[in-house]
């Protein structure tokens, strides 16, 4: 594929990915409100559009028209930059996530992924590490007690759980033998024992790693049961207390985009990526893997929202103790056992 | 084709900036950051030489330098926090006597 075709295709893929991601963020908000509402025995949004489906649109318009005030005591450059940093890093990791097999459009063989780097997993971990800056800088630049404490707590929590996140993924890495996300998914094709699909969550017992990943993901994205840094009753609103309108919307977007990225990575690494029954004409063959992938992400997000509606939140010292004293030894034990199994059975 | 001397000059400039910052800054945290800058400059020259002479041990050594820098940053910042607790200042010009 020559260079101009490559650039055009990449630009189209990037634009499409961003568009889909942003729409997905908006509709994740809708999904959350509906599901949490039904769990609490009430309807979610129902007025705006059928089933409240246009609610995110109304929310977006509301955020755009809200007064965008800047309190006088903030440290202006970082105050304005912090939400942008958070959003940029939240949206960047979608670049290495593959959503389907290779497709052939008009004679061009195109992978459904913006770039296929052979250190894809490390890039996702790196972007997660950099996402801490948005939170920390927002808390500090707002120059108020609640924000500073909320920002410090949130960033300490995110940094602590990054370790368990990374270690839980190393087990999967050892099974697949490559850091490229596409290779990891391809290693999960086929079935074993006749009918159970060879997903990493079943095959060779990575369910512990999946559990660790799930917990670390909840803590990384600051969701219940680990959302003390942004709980309204504890710290006013934590690190985004002093933000309003568009900047607050950017933090909101960053949080949900992070959730979707984490769900996508979990689907790729533990739930088998895009493997599923594929049949029919070539167009359907190209679309169906994407559909299975979206189905997995949807399931993961549903579990996320389900947990949000069900569990109470951890106190901060319980949260840190859980991360360092329970999850980290468990992740290391999982690593050791998986290494042993891989060394013995291959 | 980038000549190796470009990378080396960049590394030298980074190192020189680090040393300059170390000398002229008065805030102890800024001094510490200049040290990190020096370490980064050295890392760059390691990787450049590893690429030139096709010796991967250059990159492995960079890995070790990073680990040591991380350990040193952790301990150094802990020391800075202790010093701040007793002296109430971050200015190195004020921490020049052993007596409080």
């Amino acid at each position, binding site marked *: 594929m020559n260079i101009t075709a490559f650039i055009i295709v990449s630009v189209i893929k990037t634009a499409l990915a961003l568009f889909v991601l942003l729409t997905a963020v908006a509709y994740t908000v809708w999904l959350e409100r509906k599901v949490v509402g039904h769990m609490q025995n009430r309807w979610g949004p129902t007025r705006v559009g059928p089933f409240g489906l246009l609610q995110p649109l109304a929310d977006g318009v509301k955020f755009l028209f809200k007064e965008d005030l800047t309190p006088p005591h903030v440290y202006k450059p970082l105050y304005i930059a912090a939400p942008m940093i958070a959003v940029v890093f939240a949206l960047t990791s979608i670049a290495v996530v593959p959503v389907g097999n290779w497709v052939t459009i008009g004679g061009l063989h195109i992978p459904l992924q913006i770039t296929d780097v052979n250190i894809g997993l490390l890039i996702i971990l790196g972007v997660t590490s950099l996402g801490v800056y948005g939170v920390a800088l927002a808390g500090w630049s707002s120059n108020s007690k609640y924000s500073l404490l909320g920002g410090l707590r949130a960033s300490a929590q995110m940094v602590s759980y990054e370790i368990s996140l990374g270690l839980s993924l190393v087990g999967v890495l050892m099974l697949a033998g490559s850091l490229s996300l596409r290779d990891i998914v391809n290693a999960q094709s086929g079935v074993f024992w006749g009918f159970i699909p060879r997903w990493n969550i079943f095959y060779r017992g990575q369910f512990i790693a999946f559990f660790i990943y799930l917990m670390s993901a909840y803590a990384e994205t600051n969701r219940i049961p680990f959302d003390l840094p942004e709980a309204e009753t504890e710290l006013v609103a934590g690190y985004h207390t002093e933000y309003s309108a568009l900047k607050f919307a950017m933090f909101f977007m960053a949080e949900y985009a992070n959730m979707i990225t984490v769900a996508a990575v979990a689907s790729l690494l533990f739930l088998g990526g895009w493997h599923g029954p594929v049949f029919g004409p070539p167009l359907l063959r190209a679309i169906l893997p994407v559909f299975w992938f979206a189905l997995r992400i949807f399931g993961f997000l549903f579990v996320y929202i389900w947990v949000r509606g069900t569990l109470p939140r951890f106190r901060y010292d319980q949260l840190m103790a859980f991360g360092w004293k329970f999850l980290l030894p468990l992740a290391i034990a999982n690593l050791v056992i998986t290494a042993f199994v891989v060394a013995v059975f291959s | 084709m980038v000549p190796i001397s470009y990378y080396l000059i960049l590394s030298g400039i980074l190192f*020189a900036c680090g040393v300059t910052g170390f000398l002229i800054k008065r805030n102890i945290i800024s001094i510490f950051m200049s040290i990190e800058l020096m370490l980064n400059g050295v890392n760059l020259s390691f990787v450049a030489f590893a690429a030139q002479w096709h010796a991967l041990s250059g990159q492995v050594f960079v890995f070790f330098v990073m680990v040591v820098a991380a350990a040193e940053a952790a301990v150094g910042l*802990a020391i800075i926090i202790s010093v701040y607790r007793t002296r109430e200042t971050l200015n190195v010009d004020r921490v020049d006597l052993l007596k409080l």
Partner: protein
Amino acid sequence: MAGAVNLLAQRHPINGALSLVVVMGSLAVEYLLLGAEFVAAVQVIVYAGAIMVLFVFVIMLLNAGEEERTKGSRVALLFGVPGMLLGSILIGWVLLERGGGGAVPAGALPGAPKVIGWLLFHDFLLPFEVTSILVLIAIMGAVVLASHPDSDQGKKEG
């Protein structure tokens, strides 16, 4: 390079920390150009993502303000900057004269994680183990140094 000079120029340490992050990000890109992809990823994850976050934490905790200009700093500025300029010009001149290095194509040496892992655990095993002990000692030292001097004894288990 702009980030490095900015680090010197900024008076407030938080701006300095952020420009150092920019320096590290651009260094990661340079490593990628030289083909050292694992080192680039580790640079982002460890250096820019953890060590600099630690720096930002400490700056936030200690509420570091802007720098002051005292007598000592003026002296250092007066002697330090020209001295370093002289030193770096000297180094640069030596490098350019005696360089003879030749050109390096982009992505010259593929530093795949597998190969580096192999080296780490075979040829460099002893340094690897020693550095892990070093990090352990550093962790213990940091915890002891940064803990409060009197409230550390009777902590309840959470």
